C-alpha cells in the first residue's frame, strides 16, 4: 500500500517548524505505524535527508514513550492503544496522514515529533509516592485489601504516562494523569496516611507546570491507551476538597496543617 505523509519537522527546540510531505510507497498493511516510519526513515537516510525524529521504545504499548498525534488524534485511530500499536491496516491505500507532535506548553518540542514530558516526572517527584524506606515494610499480607479496592487501584495504576490525555484535551489538562496516581495511592491503605499532602502538592505542581484545567470534556479518557477512567478525576477532586477541609480544620484547631 501507499500513503502520503504530512509530517511536522522542527530542527530543535527553538527553531520554527513546518509540515513536510513524504510519499510512503510499498508498505505492508501489517506493518505497525512506527515500522512504517522506520521504512520511511531508511529511505530518507539513503537519499541523504535526515530521518524524522520520533520517540519510541518498547513497541508493545507499555512504556509510554511513543507519542504521535496521527490525523489529529493522539496515538492514532484505534481505541485503547499507544502509537506503536497502530497498524497500517487502519488506513486506506492512498490516504494522507498528518503526523504532529503532542502539543502543550508544558510539553515543549525537542525535535520533529519528540516532545519533552519531564513535567510529568516533576509532578511525580512532588508527591506521587508512598514514603516508605527500603526494608521498613511489614509483611505483604498484614493489611488485607479487598479485591474490589485492589482492582480499582490497579485500574488507576495502569497509566503509562504517555501524555495522550494532555494532548487530546482542548485545555491541555493533565488531570487524568495526576488523578490516576493520586487515586491509586489514596485507594490503598498504604497510601492513605499521606493522601492529603500528596494531592495538595501534586495538584500545585501540576498547576505550576502550566497545564490547563479540566472542563470535563472526556477527551482524555477517550484517547487513553489504558482506558483510565474519568472517575479518577472525580475522586481526586473529592480528595482535594477533603484535603482542604482537613487543612482548614487543622488550622482552626491550631494544629499544624497536613499540606507540609
Amino acid at each position, binding site marked *: 500500500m501507499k500513503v502520503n505523509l504530512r509530517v511536522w519537522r522542527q530542527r530543535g527546540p527553538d527553531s520554527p517548524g513546518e509540515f513536510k510531505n513524504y510519499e510512503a510507497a510499498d508498505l505492508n498493511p501489517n506493518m505497525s505505524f512506527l515500522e512504517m516510519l522506520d521504512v520511511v526513515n531508511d529511505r530518507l537516510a539513503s537519499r541523504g535527508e535526515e530521518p524524522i525524529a520520533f520517540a519510541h521504545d518498547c513497541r*508493545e504499548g507499555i512504556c509510554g514513550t511513543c507519542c504521535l498525534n496521527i490525523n489529529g488524534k493522539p496515538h492514532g485511530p484505534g481505541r485503547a492503544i499507544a502509537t506503536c500499536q497502530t497498524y497500517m491496516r487502519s488506513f486506506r491505500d492512498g490516504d494522507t496522514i498528518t503526523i504532529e507532535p503532542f502539543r502543550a506548553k508544558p510539553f515543549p518540542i525537542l525535535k520533529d515529533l519528540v516532545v519533552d514530558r519531564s513535567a510529568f516526572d516533576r509532578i511525580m517527584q512532588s508527591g506521587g509516592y508512598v514514603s516508605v524506606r527500603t526494608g521498613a515494610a511489614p509483611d505483604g499480607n498484614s493489611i488485607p485489601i479487598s479485591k474490589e479496592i485492589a482492582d480499582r487501584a490497579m485500574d488507576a495504576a495502569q497509566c503509562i504516562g504517555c501524555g495522550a490525555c494532555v494532548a487530546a484535551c482542548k485545555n491541555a489538562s493533565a488531570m487524568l494523569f495526576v488523578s490516576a496516581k493520586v487515586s491509586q495511592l489514596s485507594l490503598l491503605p498504604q497510601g492513605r496516611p499521606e493522601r492529603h499532602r500528596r494531592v495538595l502538592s501534586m495538584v500545585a505542581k501540576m498547576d505550576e507546570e502550566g497545564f490547563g484545567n479540566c472542563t470535563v470534556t472526556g477527551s482524555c479518557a477517550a484517547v487513553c491507551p489504558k482506558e483510565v477512567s474519568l472517575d479518577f478525576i472525580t475522586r481526586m477532586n473529592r480528595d482535594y476538597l477533603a484535603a482542604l477541609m482537613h487543612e482548614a480544620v487543622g488550622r482552626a484547631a491550631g494544629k499544624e496543617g497536613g499540606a507540609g
Partner: protein
Amino acid sequence: MKLEAKTPPGPLAEKWKRHQGSIKLVSPNNKRRYEVIVVGTGLAGASAAASLSELGYRVKAFCFHDSARRAHSIAAQGGINAAKNYQNDGDSVYRLFHDTIKGGDFRAREANVHRLAEVSVRIIDQCVAQGVPFAREYGGLLANRSFGGAQVSRTFYARGQTGQQLLLGAYSALCKQVGSGAVQLFPNTEMLDLVLIDGQAKGIITRNINTGAVERHAADAVILATGGYGNVFNLSTYARGSNATAIWRAYRRGAGFANPCFTQIHPTCIPVRGDYQSKLTLMSESLRNDGRCWVPKKQADHRPPGQIPEDERDYYLERMYPAYGNLAPRDIASRAAKRVCDEGRGVGTSGLGVYLDFSDSINRLGLKTIKERYANLFDIYHEITGEDAYQAPMRIFPAVHYTMGGLWVDYNLMSNVPGLFVLGEANFSDHGANRLGASALMQGLADGYFVIPYTIGDYLASVKPGTTPKTDAAAFTTAEKETQERVQRLLSIRGKRNVSYFHKQLGKILWDGCGMARNQAGLEKALQAIPELRAEFWKDVNVLGESLSMNQSLEVAHRVADFLELGEVMCMDALTRTESCGCHFREESQEAGECKRDDERFAHAAVWEFKGDGQKPERHTESLNYEFTTLATRSYK
C-alpha cells in the same frame, strides 16, 4: 584477570546473614561524603538509586529514556516469584533456590541464588508498602499463580503488568528521593564510557541525547544496571532502545564478560511476519497455565486449526514432558517448538509457529475467567495479528527474550574492576544457563533493594571519604576525547548503508549461527561473517545529522557498533562451550534432543577479558562448586 567470587563460608542458609554481619560498614555521617553513580533506572537501577540515597549516599542516576519510568522492566507481564508459601503448597526458600539452580541447569553460583531466594520474601513486602496493586483474593490477601519451571504457586502478579507496576513502585521511591534533592536524576543521558583511575571505577562519560553534549561525571563507585544485550539479535522482545553499550564499554575497560552465549529464547512470542519488522512481541508465559501447545501430527497440514480433529493433533509438550506438560521451562519449551517446526509440522504461512490453544480452558473455566486472567494479552494478540484467540488458537514461536550472561560479579555484585558494580540483567549472576519465568523481576529488585545497599559499603569503606576525583583528572579528559572521536568517526563515514542494515545482518547471522541450537560449523561461519560485517560497518555506514543535537541515527550507530563486537564474543563463547546446558544447546552434545551437560569440563562460568581491538579476548573461568545441591540431569519428564 582475578576472579574472586568472595562467597562467604558457612552453611548455605547462613551465608548471607553472616556476610551482612561481617562486611564493612560506612558510618551514617560519612555516607553523604560518597558519591555513587547509578546507570539505568529499571527495576535494579531505580531500586538501588532510591535505596542508596535513603541510606545517605549522594546518588546520581542516569537513563537514556526520557523518563526514569520507561525502562524495559515495564514489559514483564507475568509476575514475580517469592518464597512466601502463602499457598501452603510446600514452597520454601530452599525450594525456590533449588528450582532456580536446577532451572539454570547448574551453571549459577549457589550462594547468590540462595540469597536471591531469601530476599525474595522481603521484595513483596516492600512493593506492597509502596502501593503496588498486586492481585488479591476476595479475602483481601495476596493472590498467586503458577509459572513455568515450578511445581508450586509462588508468582505474585498485577494483572498482565507486573513489571510495569513494580517499576512504578521503584520509580516512585526514586521520585521521592529526587524530590527531596537526595538523588540527582539525568534522563535522556546515555553512558558512552567508563572512567578508571588507578584501576578503580571512578566515573562515566555520557552523551545527552537531547542536546548531544558529551559530559563527565565522577563518583566513588559506579553501578551499572543497564539490562541485557538481547538486541544483539536485532529482532527480540526487548525494547528498541535496549542496548549493551554501557556494559560493553565497561568490558573494554577491563570488566570481565561472563557467559555471553547464555541468551534465553522465550517460547511464547508472536511469530515473525515480515522483514520490515522491528520487534517481536512476547505473550506472557502465564498463558501456558491455561493454554495447550500443539501442532498437527501430519507434516504441512494447512487445514485451519478448527478442522484438525483431536486425534490428529500433537500436544507435544504434554507428550514429551508429562510431569510439567505445558509448564516446562522456557528453554525446553522453545526447543520443543523448534523441533516440531523443523519436522515440518509448524503452522502459519512461514511454518515457523505452533498453536497455543485455550479452548479446553474456556470450556472448563468459562470465557469470563479466561478473560479476567488474560484479556490484555488476547487484546495484544488481536491488535498485532488481527486474529481473535478466543475463537481460534494463538500462533506462537520462540524469540530472544533475556540474556543470562553479562558482566561478571562477585558475591558483592562487584565486577573484577574495583568500584564497578553490576546489577540485574546486566550481570551474569543468578540464572545460570537459563532463567525461570518471573525470576528476572525478582533478581532486579533483590539486587537493588536488598543486596547493593549492604555490599557497596564493603567497598566504599576502603575508599577514603571525600576523595571523589575531579572531572578534570587526566583519565576523564582521555575518555571524553575518545568518545568525541568515536562520535566524529561515526558521523564522518557517510557511507552507503544505513545502521539498520547492519543491525539486521548481524541479527540474521546470530540467529542462524548462535540462536536456539548451535553447532561448530554454524558458529565458525558466524565468527567469520561478523568481523567482515564490522569492517564493512566502519567503512560504509551512513550516519547523518550532527553531533550537537538530538540525533537518533547516531544513538543507534553507537549501539550497533558495540553489538558488532559483542556478537563475536558471544559466538566465541558458544563455540568454546562444547556442552549443552540450559538455553545453550550444542547439537553435538545431546541425548534424544535434550541438553547433555559436561560437568567435568564446563561446571564453570566462562569470563572473557578484552585484550585490545583486533586481539582475541582471553577466556578465564570461575569454577562453580555445588556443595549443597547434586548436579543432576535436568528432567521435566
